[in-house]
């Protein structure tokens, strides 16, 4: 309050000493362009362990026109741009490299239109994923992608990462739920990609944009598809004496022709940590638990639930529990969805991988993951979207311990190699960002990467939008140039 008073009495506002910042303040509003140490320090990070981001000014636009103004000014001043949602990304996609202007879309958080007849909603990119579903639920709908961070992450971030979530097993990931995007291109032009028509004409640029991790432009409005709430849901919790039994059950369920809404596995250590937080009644003595959910019509869900229970028992399930109430179900899911945060009870740092392997290879790769961690003397926990083979091995450590980071990185590299060797891919849903970049050449050939970079340059010839991400440096020379262009002594 005193600051406020002082400002009012003296008429003094912060002078940035930088022409770009001053231009931003004039174009947007002085209050929504921050250039102080506190804002820059906080926007140098997201939820990943990557340390080394360096933010320039931070702007909070409220309209498409304001985003456009920021991008144009950045072009005029030769500065880079990094879009940011809630900063819950786990691969460092929102980490600013080379002191760019960070465009935080958190204030663009309006649900603009809900069109139940056409099953479409128009939203701004800063709308929180769970807020959207909570708003839609009374209308009988929800937004299907439900990343574990859904209570905090934004739809704009979901678009950038093509986010998945437990329930994407049956309903598909974000790409299947976004029909149109209004974007500000790196040139500063506003474009509409995709459309509400069933078959929009031309190349599917919407599909190119979804999952591009902010390297092709900034989303300013999103038309999402609404998913009808299912009348009946059954949630099963199966306990096993080994992770392999749980993995085999998952394969068995899919092979049996059942498509559950979700199938999630947690091993003993992570189950202990989440149970300690939620108290949902997760068994502490099971080597692994499988959370399986089926939804649909009354008669169908009971049959599917029974069959899943039977397949579990055939694979040595030691207990099968059916959630009796909505409250019980909600608690079980809360446990699963807060798993990453809950590990801090065990150690303060984690490095999370996100590989996807063929379901048939699940059990083998998991065994290998445990062996790799043991070899490198690193604590590992496994929690994963079992239904689609998306592994999330969490390497747990205390960064203050000498030499531990080297072991963590070595183990991580081997886990990735093991996954790729089994026919898997690098990232299921968290994206490549800066964290998985160095592994890209294990999955793609030089030609692959060059072509990806060419596509990117079609949108962003000067590589000014989220530079230094996704495509490794050898294949994106413009990035390097652009990152070197950080003006000395101005910031950085």
């Amino acid at each position, binding site marked *: 309050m005193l*600051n406020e008073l002082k400002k009012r009495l003296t008429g003094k506002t912060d002078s940035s000493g930088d022409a770009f910042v001053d231009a931003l303040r004039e174009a947007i509003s002085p209050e929504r362009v921050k250039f102080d140490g506190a804002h820059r320090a906080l926007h140098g990070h997201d*939820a990943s362990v990557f340390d080394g981001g360096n933010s320039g000014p931070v702007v909070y636009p409220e309209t498409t026109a304001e985003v456009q103004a920021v991008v144009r000014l950045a072009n005029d001043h030769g500065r880079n741009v990094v879009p940011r949602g809630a*900063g819950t990304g786990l691969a460092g996609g929102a980490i600013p490299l080379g002191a760019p202007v960070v465009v*935080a879309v958190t204030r663009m958080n309006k649900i603009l239109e809900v069109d139940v007849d056409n099953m479409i909603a128009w939203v701004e990119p800063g709308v929180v994923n769970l807020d959207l579903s909570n708003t839609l639920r009374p209308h009988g709908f929800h937004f299907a992608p439900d990343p574990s961070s859904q209570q*905090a992450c934004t739809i704009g971030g979901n678009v950038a990462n093509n986010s998945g979530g437990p329930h994407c097993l049956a309903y598909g990931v974000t790409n299947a739920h976004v029909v149109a995007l209004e974007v500000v291109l790196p040139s500063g032009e506003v474009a509409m990609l995709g459309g509400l028509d069933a078959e929009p004409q031309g190349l599917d640029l919407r599909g190119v944009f979804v999952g591009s991790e902010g390297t092709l432009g900034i989303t300013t409005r999103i038309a999402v598809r609404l998913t009808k709430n299912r009348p009946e849901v059954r949630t099963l919790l199966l306990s096993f004496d080994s992770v392999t039994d749980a993995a085999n059950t998952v394969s068995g369920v899919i092979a049996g022709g059942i498509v559950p809404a979700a199938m999630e596995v947690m091993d003993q250590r992570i189950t202990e940590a989440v149970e300690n937080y939620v108290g949902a009644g997760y068994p502490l003595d099971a080597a692994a638990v499988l959370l399986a959910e089926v939804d649909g019509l009354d008669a169908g869900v009971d049959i599917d639930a029974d069959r899943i229970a039977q397949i579990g028992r055939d694979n040595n399930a030691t207990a099968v529990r059916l959630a009796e109430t909505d409250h019980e179900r909600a608690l079980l899911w809360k446990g699963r969805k807060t798993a990453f945060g809950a590990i801090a009870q065990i150690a*303060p740092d984690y490095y999370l991988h996100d590989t996807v392997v063929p379901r048939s290879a699940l059990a083998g790769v998991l065994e290998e993951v445990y062996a790799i961690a043991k070899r490198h003397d690193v604590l590992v926990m496994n929690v994963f979207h079992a239904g689609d083979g998306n592994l999330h091995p969490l390497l747990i450590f205390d960064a203050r311990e000498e030499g531990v980071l080297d072991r963590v990185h070595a183990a991580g590299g081997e886990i990735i190699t093991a996954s790729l060797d089994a026919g898997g891919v690098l990232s299921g849903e968290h994206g490549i960002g800066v964290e998985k970049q160095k592994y890209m050449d294990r999955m793609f050939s030089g030609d692959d990467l060059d072509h990806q970079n060419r596509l990117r340059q079609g949108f962003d010839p000067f590589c000014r939008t989220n530079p230094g991400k996704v495509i490794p440096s050898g294949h994106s020379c413009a990035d390097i140039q652009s990152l070197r262009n950080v003006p000395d002594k101005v910031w950085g």
Partner: protein
Amino acid sequence: MDLKLDDDMLNQCVQCGLCLPHCPTFRVTGDETMSPRGRIKLMREVQLADAPVTDEVLDAFSSCVQCRGCEPACPSGVEYGHLMERTRETLADEGMMTPAWQRLALKPLANPTLLHAGSKVLAVAQRLKLVPGRLGISEQLPMRQAPLETSGDDVFLFTGCVMDAWQRDVHAAGQRVLEAAGFGVTPTNELAPCCGALQAHAGLTGETRSLAETMMANLDAGSGAEPRPIIVDSAGCGAAMKDYGHLLDTPEAVAFSARVFDIQEFLALHLNRLPTAAPIDLRVAVQDPCHLRHVQRVHDATRTVLRPYVRELVELDDEGLCCGAGGAYSVLEPELAGQIRERKLGSIERAAPDVVASANPGCSMHLGSAGANTRHPMQLIDDALNQ
């Protein structure tokens, strides 16, 4: 500088960001410096990396409502409230926060004579229309109030400072409901002038400690007697008194805190003693005060005790997001408090109740001054019992 925070507690935060939507200031600003994750990061920068305590850093800390809505949302169990209280204490000790005028303004809380005299002046000023609206005093302050009389020695009813001066009718209703359940009530009056919550929020923890010690000495059960429960009808005070064990870190303080009950919590434990009555003909929305829901975590009790006495009980759809009152926060940060309140009012409007039940005097005044029709749950039950 050393904020005197425990390094391990500070490192407990993994920066996952799940707290963000549960933080009222982040909700209305979208600004990371106004989020729990951001504030913890700034504490780290200051304490571990010796970053300077700039105006922006101070703003980040002083803009926190201390609602602690982030704590139940945190899967890592970060004790954010304690981190923020300690940070403020250190900065206040260094003279960087809580300026002299604020310290002075908090003084009368611990002094009933001064407080009631001041309150009377305010009541007169209010009638002369001299009190600015931004102070958020929604109701007509009482000129004269009947004293609360002791009716027995089963329980203490904590009366406190501002609430006793401005809302003694709530205490009276609470006392009547306790008596209807067959409890003899001793109002604490001058035995316990103030719980020290507002002082702790402002970083003046030393004052809180001395108030806690006074109260513990005065409300001691005496030799041999069964220690009496201490019933509190203000969520903020109850939360502060339940924290004495942590604050003083003595076995006596821990034992004292264990005797403290929120009035709804206490009645829910003795539901069978409450007389039945025809429900009053109102649609009531429950507004959970943060320190009842996020700190004491006994907000379900409000529903348990209230439900039989009202026609209809409805929930707000904002998952217990703060209303922006925050003790003295609405006076110190009126702009943010107002924006936060707008969200709450929107939620109330969607629930379309006749009346909003709020178990905290700060919330009810803050919401009331924006036109919401608020009553304490005890007043509603008292009405039902006496209709």
